[in-house]
């Protein structure tokens, strides 16, 4: 506890985030071993992990880099299908399941990163809502391409076609991606443990990035582009960096997701899924990584919890969404919450800098944490 107290504010927050994820994992594992969790929850563990990764990665673009992206599912899709193809290709050469999963996730991430780079170059010329529209457009283009993509594997290697399965020119072998029918017969390699590791990996990448020179440059561009340029930051480079890393992580999450189901279809990765991920990010708080983790978890479980009210389920979900936004932006409640927090902090013996600052006095003691 003393060690915890002596950490800097950001280090403490980072630590809390990791600790939260690890503790949640351990609790779920213990409960699962005791047979104490439902099939329903068990079935959602891997998708929850995937959504956490997606939310965290999108937060890098939306919260940290400050660009509204409406096509995140596109990168998830690229990663998912690339991962599935990779897993099939490695099936004979890499007999170890875990290793094959890792390789497939890496391939998924890599392909999504390439897609992110290709998409990012034109996108980075735009700003604000125009950028949002172009990401939406790319998401739709990726979906349309996936709907027409046929991939087969036979002894001669991989075959690709954009017209139909017959034109793959296969001799024996299997069709891995079959246009709108997607990929079927996927080997279910993903496990909750793998999902947990991927979540930790995403947190590791994003949190470390934020607290590094590159991450600060990304945030500087968000806060004030012209000022960032004027201190010598290459704006395009850092916006692109955030975009590509985010795409790569989304691709990894996509691969994890795909290999949790025996089949996936391109339609799954549409605009609605992009929006869903965006909802996680906004509800969790822009730039708030821990918030993304929590909201992705809760919002994935929520519709399942609401099954009891059947017909009114989605209606209630919509109302919950609206109410959360209204409540979290209510000035009275916000003030009360801030009060509570500062009181809690005061009890912990933290200097209450903010208040003193607001009054315009210089603080007496130093407050440098590091």
């Amino acid at each position, binding site marked *: 506890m003393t060690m915890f107290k002596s950490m800097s504010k950001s280090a403490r927050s980072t630590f809390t985030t990791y600790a939260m994820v690890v503790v949640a994992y351990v609790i779920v594992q213990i409960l699962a071993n005791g047979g104490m969790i439902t*099939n329903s929850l068990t079935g*959602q563990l891997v998708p929850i992990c995937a959504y956490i990764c997606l939310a965290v990665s999108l937060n890098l673009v939306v919260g940290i880099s400050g660009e509204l992206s409406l096509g995140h599912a596109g990168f998830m899709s690229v990663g998912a299908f690339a991962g599935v193809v990779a897993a099939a290709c490695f099936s004979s050469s890499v007999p170890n399941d875990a290793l094959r999963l890792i390789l497939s996730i890496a391939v998924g991430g890599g392909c999504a990163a390439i897609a992110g780079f290709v998409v990012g170059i034109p996108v980075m010329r735009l700003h604000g809502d125009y950028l949002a529209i172009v990401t939406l457009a790319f998401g739709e283009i990726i979906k349309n391409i996936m709907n027409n993509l046929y991939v087969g594997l036979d002894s001669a290697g991989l075959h690709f076609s954009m017209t139909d*399965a017959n034109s793959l020119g296969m001799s024996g072998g299997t069709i891995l991606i079959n*246009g709108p029918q997607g990929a*079927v*017969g996927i080997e279910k390699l993903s496990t909750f443990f793998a999902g947990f590791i991927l979540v930790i990996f995403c947190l590791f990448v994003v949190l470390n990035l934020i607290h590094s020179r590159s991450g600060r440059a990304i945030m500087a561009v968000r806060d004030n582009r012209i000022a960032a340029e004027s201190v010598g930051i290459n704006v395009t480079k850092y916006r692109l960096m955030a975009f590509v890393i985010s795409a790569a992580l989304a691709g990894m999450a996509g691969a994890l997701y795909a290999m949790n*189901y*025996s089949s996936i279809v391109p339609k*799954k990765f549409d605009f609605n899924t992009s929006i869903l991920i965006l909802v996680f990010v906004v509800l969790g708080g822009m730039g708030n990584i821990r918030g993304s983790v929590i909201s992705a978890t809760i919002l994935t479980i929520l519709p399942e919890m609401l099954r009891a009210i*059947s017909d009114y389920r989605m209606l209630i979900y919509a109302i919950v969404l609206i109410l959360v936004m209204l409540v979290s932006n209510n000035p009275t409640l916000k003030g009360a919450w801030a009060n509570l927090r500062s009181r809690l902090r005061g009890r912990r013996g933290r200097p209450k800098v903010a208040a003193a600052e607001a009054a315009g006095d210089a603080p007496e003691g130093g407050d440098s944490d590091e």
Partner: protein
Amino acid sequence: SGSSSSSSSSSDSGSTATFKLGGIGPVTGAAAIYGTACKNGAQIAVDEIKAAGGDVIFDFNFQDDEHDPEKSVNAYNNLKDWGMQILTGPTTTAPCVAVSAETNSDNMFELTPSASSTDVIGGQPDADGNVSTPRKSNVFQMCFTDPNQGTASAKYIKEQSLGTKIAIIYNNSDTYSTGIFKKFTSEAQAQGLEIVSTTSFTDDTATDFSVQLNDAKNNGADLLFIPIYYTPASLILKQADTMGYKPKFFGVDGLDGLLTLEGFDTSLAEGVMLLTPFTADATDSATQSFVSTYKKDYDGTPNQFAADSYDCVYAIKQAIEKAGITADMTYTDICDKLVAAFTASDFKFDGLTGTGMTWSDTGEVSKDPKGMVIKDGAYVSM
């Protein structure tokens, strides 16, 4: 939900305990019509069976999947928590493919009313004769498989010489539609039919069909094959009419529902042909009583999804009775016995969607498609 559970009937003879029957399908979102129809159809069967008071009665629980494979698997797990012993569903193909993998590994008996892709049952060869997904021995279909419909349609068109120059409009973002389309084209070639125009659309562009229709018209197509659902089909009929293009229209089971579309000008559908196992205005008493109950309970006309789903429940009931299954068995035991019952050579089922239906161990149903043509706003056998 549709759980009309009244578990008060826990009499001492174990055989009258209720079976927990689960159903899955979209009741919200864009595909909600199909799931809702399945839910209602099954519910009617469950209620009838209960009212009849036999030994086999069901407790029915239908869960929404929003036409999303992930949600569908969630719904399946949720039903398992409820204690489901038999599954009828999911309604739509992509979710069903995902769920069938789960039921297969759990060994839960699954009979889908309407998911028609061969990926659902597995074990079917693709175009090259490869089997990409092994047979899921616990999964059966009540509807025709997509290739089946494609083949049957091409054959039918050839046999009846319905058209010489054929145009196709299919839904490129839909598994069902592409599945039929693919098989149809290869079978048409084999039959020597000439396909002059092939165009597609996606769920996102399912409003304007002028380009597709123009293409068909300009290539002189005299028969338009539309392996799609009736909602976009109604738009195609309307737009063809507006542009004064009058080919023959030929559709598959997805087209059923066209005539009962509220507000639809049925004269537009005059002469439309379709292969479907069920029509709501069939004159047999079973169909008529089903239709009138459906109208009474759900304020609408049942389509083929509802009928398939209704049949599913009765088929399961018949198999349970035949195999002497009791509700206190575990779902795996039930599954093994049901599989045996369904594939038994002497198992024949008469339902709304066909008579003398049998199932092979591939999971496919064998029933006769009925060629129907719309005349004076009603279906008439061809």
